[in-house]
């Protein structure tokens, strides 16, 4: 396993260059019952996001008289990974849910809906590294689909250090055997990256590598943003044509 070369002749295991994303597919409004929904594939990640709300808060004591509360549940299906995952939240998913919720909460205009809840549920149907970023991208689109007022859109992508090289959007092998993993989420407003909404990192990176990673992540995020935008526009254009 130690000899596994992750980069050969300047290409990655799946033939991508260092600054290339995996193929992304986004579909908007795929669930009937939810107020907003999105199905997203990012490489072999397959995730489904649903948004309910603004709606009444249960249990009631959680309600905030000054703003809406935001809840986010990152949940992996038992069949989503190589070895069956025991159903229900584990420590990893609790942490991911927390930082993801915080990222989205920065853009949702919660003060418009006191005493109510915006619930975001994301199911990982298949996971292949970077599932938290795929989920945030899907959740963001589902929030738009639900008509939740927002100050911008959240777009998320990870970078990794693999065989000493900084690469965009790592896949499973790169995540497992790479030297570092750094997921980001950005707030994009008026077509420009404005700030960082999510930041995590583990592994080993120099200051310069972190800087290089951030630049690469920004480039990747802008590409994903265009796809999120197109997917949303496509749905509403189709609806207009039907009328």
């Amino acid at each position, binding site marked *: 396993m130690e000899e596994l070369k992750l980069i050969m002749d300047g290409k990655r295991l799946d033939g991508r260059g260092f600054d290339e994303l995996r193929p992304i597919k986004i579909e908007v409004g795929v669930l009937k019952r939810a107020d907003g929904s999105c199905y997203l594939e990012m490489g072999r990640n397959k995730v489904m996001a649903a948004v309910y709300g603004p709606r009444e808060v249960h249990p009631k004591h959680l309600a905030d008289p000054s703003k809406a509360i935001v809840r986010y549940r990152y949940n992996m299906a038992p069949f989503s990974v190589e070895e069956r995952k025991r159903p229900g939240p584990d*420590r990893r998913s609790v942490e991911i849910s*927390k*930082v993801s919720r915080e990222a989205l909460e920065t853009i949702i205009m919660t003060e418009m809906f006191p005493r109510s809840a915006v619930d975001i549920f994301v199911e990982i149907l298949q996971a292949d590294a970077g599932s938290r970023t795929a989920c945030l991208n899907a959740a963001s689109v589902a929030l738009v689909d639900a008509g939740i007022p927002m100050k911008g859109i959240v777009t998320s992508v990870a970078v990794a250090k693999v065989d000493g090289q900084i690469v965009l959007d790592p896949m499973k092998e790169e995540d497992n055997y790479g030297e570092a993993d750094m997921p980001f989420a950005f707030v994009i407003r008026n077509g420009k990256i*404005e700030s960082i909404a*999510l930041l*995590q990192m583990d592994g080993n990176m*120099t200051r310069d590598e972190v800087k290089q990673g951030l630049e690469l992540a920004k480039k990747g995020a802008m590409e994903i943003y265009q796809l999120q935008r197109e997917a949303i526009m496509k749905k509403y254009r189709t609806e207009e044509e039907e009328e």
Partner: protein
Amino acid sequence: MPEDILVDIRRDYVLSKLRDGERIDGRKLDEFRKIEIKTNVIEKAEGSALVKLGDTQVMVGIKMQPGEPYPDTPDRGVIITNAELVPLASPTFEPGPPDEGSIELARVVDRGIRESKAINLEKLCIEEGEKVWIIFIDIHALDDDGNLMDASALAAISALLTTTVPAEKFELGDDYPLPVRNLPVSVTSLLVGERILVDPTRDEMSVGNNFVTMITDQDDNFVGMQKSGTFLLSEEKFYELMDVSIEKARQIREILKDI
């Protein structure tokens, strides 16, 4: 209700001082509180440390026992980190299963130790694929006056530095010191507007839970980062945080070298 009013008063006080570039306890913006580390405070534990960071107190105990390795690392010891925010430490902590706050705390501390490769896990293999040493790092918060993160990380590495592998107890030969080969240091900052406050106190945290934790190793490389809280971080602040974290960690590492 009175607690809410107090929070408002504290927040106003913190912010009004900060307008003049001052902190309520007179520290510089990038100054840590006084750090006190006592090691081997619990005889029954294989290693332990009590860390005081100002008035914040955290105890970490290390227990070790032989157990099964993970299938993908059959020749390496296992680290398991857990944090308990017991109600004794703060009026806002409640008994019960770990909430997201304590899970995040434990996972970020774990990240620093794991990713800096602070413990030589290859040396903790007893029988490949069958038996390895399991290291339990248990973080016990005793008094939360802010920045439990850095206090816990410091207590964890301090406790590990004084840990003895209890081989005799399990009839596995002579006891030996746990092989520690790196010193990860966590630096947590509170972001208030344009300002970065290193090692925030509980009172300072009343302005908002806007934190960034950055963990560096002894070569000044980053081994862990975590943005925590509902706020947006500018690129400029991100770079500033990296510089502050490297510099502060170097100072704290000097204290660790004396253990």
